């Protein structure tokens, strides 16, 4: 029982971080039909901004994280949207997919070139001490990760549902043409979405890097998991991505613990296939009609 609890809690803690990346994924899709295959690298890179802030500029951890957040929102949000997505958007989804795959490779290789191919230690915001719950040892780090992810997601939901800007963003996602007629500045709303995605990726990066270590190649598995989580949960729903992220975190850990570590990737993949067969729109997704 205690082992089960242990695996469950660890799974939820990492799953909540996957959820952040997955939510960003669905946001971009809803706002601008962008499938961002560089999402994993978007999570990998901010950790290096933090490290540069700490080691090159000599900042403490929290100011370095603030700096990384600003740099990420500018580079991975605004510049990414203006330079890569905007010119490609009129040509459909596929060119964007190709461009983001290319961007992912570029980001990996640049980190390798400028920061070496070696893993770097990354400080945790939370204490590494532990306490006991129902026989399971829980670390403050896991709890901290869960809480920070939860706060980020709740804040995002409140922003989207309760503020004028948030509702304009939703309107843009649901029907850009009508939103524009009603006076919503669509381009601005799409830009906000990209900035929010970059901020979510930065939070995910800061939370996951103490566990996974900061390394150029760490984005690949995270990107894959975020993609899976988004599909499993429903590609067009923020809460679907949240559920998908948590589910995959738990199933990944459960299959590693109770099947074998060789099949740990297989667990989430089988889940994906089953869900696509039974519920193509995802667990919490709504089916979308295609228009011509």
């Amino acid at each position, binding site marked *: 029982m205690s082992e089960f609890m242990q695996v469950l809690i660890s799974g939820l803690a990492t799953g909540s971080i996957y959820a952040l990346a997955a939510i960003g994924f669905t946001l971009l899709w809803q706002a601008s039909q962008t499938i961002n295959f560089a999402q994993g690298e978007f999570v990998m890179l901010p950790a290096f901004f933090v490290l540069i802030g700490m080691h090159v500029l000599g900042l403490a951890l929290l100011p370095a994280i603030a700096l990384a957040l600003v740099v990420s929102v500018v580079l991975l949000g605004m510049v990414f949207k203006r330079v890569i997505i905007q010119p490609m958007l009129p040509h459909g989804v596929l060119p964007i997919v190709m461009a983001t795959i290319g961007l992912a490779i570029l980001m990996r290789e640049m980190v390798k070139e400028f920061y070496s191919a070696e893993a770097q230690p990354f400080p945790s915001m939370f204490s590494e001490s532990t306490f006991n719950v129902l026989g399971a040892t829980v670390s403050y780090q896991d709890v901290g990760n869960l809480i920070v992810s939860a706060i980020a997601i709740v804040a995002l939901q409140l922003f989207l549902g309760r503020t004028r800007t948030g509702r304009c963003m939703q309107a843009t996602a649901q029907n850009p043409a009508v939103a524009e007629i009603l006076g919503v500045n669509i381009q601005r709303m799409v830009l906000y979405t990209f900035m929010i995605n970059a901020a979510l990726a930065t939070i995910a990066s800061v939370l996951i890097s103490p566990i996974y270590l900061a390394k150029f190649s760490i984005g690949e598995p995270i990107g894959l998991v975020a993609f899976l989580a988004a599909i499993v949960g429903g590609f067009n729903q923020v809460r679907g991505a949240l559920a998908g992220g948590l589910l995959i975190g738990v199933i990944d850990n459960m299959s590693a613990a109770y099947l*074998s570590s060789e099949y740990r990737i297989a667990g989430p993949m089988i889940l994906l296939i089953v869900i696509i067969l039974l519920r193509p729109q995802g667990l919490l997704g709504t089916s979308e009609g295609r228009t011509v």
Partner: protein
Amino acid sequence: MIRNFALAALVAAGLGATAASAETIKLGNVAELSGSGATVGKAWTDAITMGVEEINAAGGVLGNQLELSSYDSQTDAQTSRALVQKAIDDGAFLILGTVYSGSTIVNMLVTQQQGIPQIVGSEAPAITQKGNPFIFRSSFGAHKSMPKIADYLKNGLGVSKVAVSWVNNEFGKGGHDAFVKEVTDRGIEVVADVSSEVAQADFAADVAKLKGSGAEAIFVYLHEEESARILRELNKQGVDVPIVGETTLLNQKVVELAGEAANGIMGHVGLTVDAPNPEIQEFGKRFSEKYGYKADHNAMKGYVAIYAAKTAIERAGELDRQKVADTLHSMTVKVSEVPNILLDVSWDETGEVSRESFLVEIQDGKSVVKDTLPAN
């Protein structure tokens, strides 16, 4: 004036001719410069580069300068094989590397077929057990180090149940099999046997299994980055039984990446720059001055490899690959003769090495040598 120029030109041409006529000995270093083994390959290559510069500054080998070319295997077995062939095509007299056993087991066939001596940093037992007359190690195979660890578990810690975490590749399987055999022979029960994948990021489930097994000690046999991740997770889940490892677990890079979670781990180390021997201390100092980081066992393996190559060529007396390989078999080098070999070392007929080793504990982020174990 014109005559002076002509004279200068003649002299220059003459110098050029003598420089060109002196032969260089080409060495091909194939190592993990990127990919999951980058930490390992970089230390190995840096030490070899330093060794080559020292040897050349001291007049080279048999009067010839060494010319080192390094190739990046990307920690990929097939790439390493292609690059070993490329190094041979480029005229390498001898091949250094690879360090990852999974790569070595594949690329050593290339040097064997073409009769090129190859000195590797790999530790999987299988490498020297295939009857390849051209393969040589620069550190122990796992079957040499595991008996020392099993003895320590039984006599030093008095353990009767142990859990094993190992990486599912050539290196991990070789070490795992040797370890399980040695502990079982000594009456220690293996209560959890947990394999993980190369570059695995999440060790929460692995650690939950190790923890739940009721083991009195946990033996970790993973690569550097994965070692750091599992140590952090062991710490996170509050595991308090002794954590024991072989060389890799006690690597400086692991200690740096794992931070406080590394304190208290113990293990057997084939080579460590913290050893009390003056030659090793001197090497460690030169290395960190040159590269700005602390040499680990992979750096020491590389350094031993390049000086083993130099000594073997000198003792063979000529640039004959077969003769160099013959010399390396059953070669013994003493520190009193070649200080840069770091520790007295012997090679046997299979290319396996034998030398002293150390029992190390990590205290406050530093590795402390607790004991020196005799060669076996």
